[in-house]
């Protein structure tokens, strides 16, 4: 059988980052092909090239054996290639039928609602999807909305369907249903690509698996030959089986913060954090590992006070702060380095001094009788600049113009100032260059040496192993397990990130 799509030697570089390097991929009709890899491995880039959003720097694409150029999304649509993105492109006030009809190439004047609804009903039944064509999008659950996205493509006659992390927003039950749908599509002769980072799901549901890491194809295999070990090796690689500490630290037994059976709901109304319990001791760096989107953000927000805990308690040095406001927690010594650096942590339009005083502008440190004390503010700012080697274009320039690394340094500087009891650091080095990363890691480590407890949330196992004393792994909102860094390795943590409990090292 001939492949319907062949991507040969595809390379794509963005600035200094090589997102895809000589990637080869072939796709056959009737198969479910999984693209496995961590965030940043190059999966999305490759698929964006296939759907015409990006153009490859080099390499060729063959469609049914013929060389083709995909210059724009329209070209991809002409080839009957369609993609379901992580962020849906649906109009919430319109019905399912209307959304699908909007996307189709129909050009009738009056919308023949009933006819379209009938056609959609047939289509959805054929591919084992349950969708009410007359329902409005905002009434549907996320899983149902995803089905609408799939139907959109099918209705338009897509033969190659790409789904980007489709189970990320689904419950396990819904995910099973979705894969049943994908299977019936494959049986119908269509070719399906699933981008995923979930090893188990991919082993269970795909026909073939291609593993990408750092832009390179590490491995391609039929699902029958896939084992967790083989996949893990491809995804995280052989980067050091064990990590030694850089220095032996004394961590007291005193508990800085206790999280007890905390649960929380995300913005969409679904449970994001399920019954999580753990402690962090004074001077300890506690890491949270896991693929982004498994509840880390909500957990950080609950501890910082931005989000209410639906259940459970939080004790800070023995005090119950579960119901405390953000302000009160700040006063008690909770600092938060938000992952939303320019949204919540810093104000991009304000200059450095304006950002430095964000938390403490009311205190005597920076103001007297409602008047800001410029001298102490500028002193503080210059102190931060020197301490943390922050490069900037001028004290009066908006921080939005600074580089990401320097912005982060400023944010970290402000949050660490004042020896907080606990620092919640959410993805603090994400997207930063090596230099800035190193500096921020050192800053956090130093803070911990001073007795600050650090909650370090990251996706990078390397960072976690280098910095943390213990690591807790979050998957689907649950704490899968907590390990001492010295007693575990990448492999074990990697598997826990995929959801495996009761994993033993070397098993």
């Amino acid at each position, binding site marked *: 059988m001939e492949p319907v799509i062949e991507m040969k030697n595809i390379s794509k570089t963005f600035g200094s980052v090589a997102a895809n390097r000589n990637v080869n991929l072939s796709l056959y009709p009737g198969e479910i092909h999984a693209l496995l890899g961590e965030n940043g491995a190059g999966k999305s880039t490759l698929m964006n090239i296939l759907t015409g959003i990006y153009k490859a720097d080099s390499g060729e694409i063959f469609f049914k054996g013929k060389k083709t150029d995909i210059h724009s999304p329209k070209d991809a649509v002409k080839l009957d290639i369609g993609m379901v993105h992580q962020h849906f492109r649906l109009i919430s006030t319109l019905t399912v039928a209307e959304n699908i009809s909007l996307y189709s190439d129909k050009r009738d004047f009056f919308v023949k609602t009933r006819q379209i609804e009938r056609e959609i009903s047939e289509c959805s039944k054929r591919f084992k999807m349950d969708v009410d064509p007359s329902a409005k999008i905002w009434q549907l659950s996320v899983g149902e909305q995803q089905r609408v996205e799939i139907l959109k493509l099918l209705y338009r006659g897509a033969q190659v369907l790409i789904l980007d992390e489709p189970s990320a927003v689904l419950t396990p039950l819904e995910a099973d249903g979705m894969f049943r749908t994908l299977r019936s599509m494959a049986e119908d002769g269509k070719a399906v690509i699933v981008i995923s980072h979930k090893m188990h799901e991919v082993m269970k549901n795909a026909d073939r698996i291609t593993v990408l890491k750092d832009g390179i194809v590490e491995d391609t295999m039929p699902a029958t030959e896939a084992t967790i070990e083989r996949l893990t090796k491809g995804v995280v690689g052989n980067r050091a089986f064990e990590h030694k500490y850089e220095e032996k630290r004394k961590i007291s037994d005193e508990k800085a913060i206790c999280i007890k059976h905390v649960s929380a709901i995300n913005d969409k109304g679904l449970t994001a954090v399920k019954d999580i319990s753990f402690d962090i001791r004074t001077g300890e760096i506690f890491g949270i590992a896991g693929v982004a989107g498994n509840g880390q953000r909500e957990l950080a927000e609950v501890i910082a006070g931005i989000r209410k805990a639906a259940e459970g308690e939080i004790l800070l040095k023995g005090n119950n702060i579960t119901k405390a406001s953000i302000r009160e927690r700040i006063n008690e010594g909770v600092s938060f380095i938000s992952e939303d650096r320019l949204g919540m942590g810093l104000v991009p339009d304000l200059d450095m001094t*304006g950002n430095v005083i964000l938390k403490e502008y009311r205190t005597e440190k920076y103001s007297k009788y409602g008047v800001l004390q410029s001298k102490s503010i500028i002193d503080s700012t210059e102190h931060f600049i020197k301490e943390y080697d922050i490069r900037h274009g001028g004290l009066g320039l908006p921080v939005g113009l600074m580089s990401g690394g320097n912005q982060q340094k400023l944010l970290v500087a402000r949050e660490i100032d004042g020896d907080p009891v606990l620092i919640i650091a959410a993805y603090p080095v994400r997207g930063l260059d090596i230099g800035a990363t190193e500096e921020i890691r050192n800053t956090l480590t130093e803070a911990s040496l001073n007795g600050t407890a650090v909650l370090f949330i990251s996706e990078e196992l390397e960072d976690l192993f280098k910095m943390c004393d213990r690591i807790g792994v979050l998957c689907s909102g649950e704490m899968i397990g907590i390990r001492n860094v010295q007693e575990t390795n990448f492999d074990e943590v990697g598997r826990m990130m995929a959801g495996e409990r009761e994993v033993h090292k070397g098993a």
Partner: protein
Amino acid sequence: MHKMRFERRPTLPIMIQLINSIIFVLLALAFCGMFMSVLGFNPLSVYKAMMLDIISSKGIKNSIIAGLPLVFCGLGVAFGYRMNMNNIGGDGQYALGAVFCIWFALYGPVMPPALKITVMFLLALAGGAAAALIAAIPKALWNVSETISSMMLNYIILYVLNYLMYGPWKEKGQMIAQTTQIKKKYWLPEIGDTGISTVLIIAVVIAVFLYWFHKKTTKGYEMEVVRRSPRAAIYAGINVKLNIILVLAISGAICGLAGFAQITSILHRAQADMPAGAGYTGIVIAYLAGLNPIAVVIVGLLFGALQFSAVSVQVLGVPSQIATMIQGSIMLFVIIGSFFNRYRLIRIDGSAERGE
């Protein structure tokens, strides 16, 4: 295939931005000149006549008189915009401030002038604030758009003023819809011989105070944070609802001072439709001044000059609405011109893309 694209510029030096704005102001004047010539006027001679009227000695005095209410409205509106509040209700706040003020002036107890004027000042503030609060509270509590509600209040309050001026407070025995003049002893004195009222000093003082307020106080800082990043404001523990009410109240209070200015130094009485659109002009002034209080005073006085010269140039047959027309087109052209301060046009090749 070549495509053109707009790309954000890095920040330009202030001088260049200013020159850019001036170019567009001139374009606006040319645009208005177009309409003038269609109506049979020679734009250049009209503009020349206007300028001569302004720089005459009578002109400067009258420009300031016309400009003072505008300056106050501009200051008030700008204050609101400093926290993204659209205070369209300047006219209503001006009117209510005037109502409170004139009531006390005419019907309040006899007092030493200094005291009486001070109370009138405070009442004008209170009137303006009250008018603003009627729109501010629904905004803060229920997120009702302050734009439309303050707009409606304009008409309602103006009808109240109208009723008072034609009815119970009308000057006895006269036909014009206005009150009697307030007693001379309650008039605010002029600055020496110039004929310029001391209200100008009050306006300048307030402007300087506001400038300092925005830069140096914690409240000013809070307003800035709320304006630039509501999320960061939540993190910083700023009470946004309270600030909405405070800011709109102060914004209205300052507009109310326009009424104070009229009553104590310009008309020395209250009239129906006294505001005459000052609230809207205030919006234009606030925008053109970039919300900077000191610049508001300058732009406000310039607009006062514009209004005055528009009235005086009526002798040439030019309708006085030319002032509003020029104001509106200046604003429009400057809006368009400011785009070029932020973006520039670049050409991209057909196959280039934006890197991530």
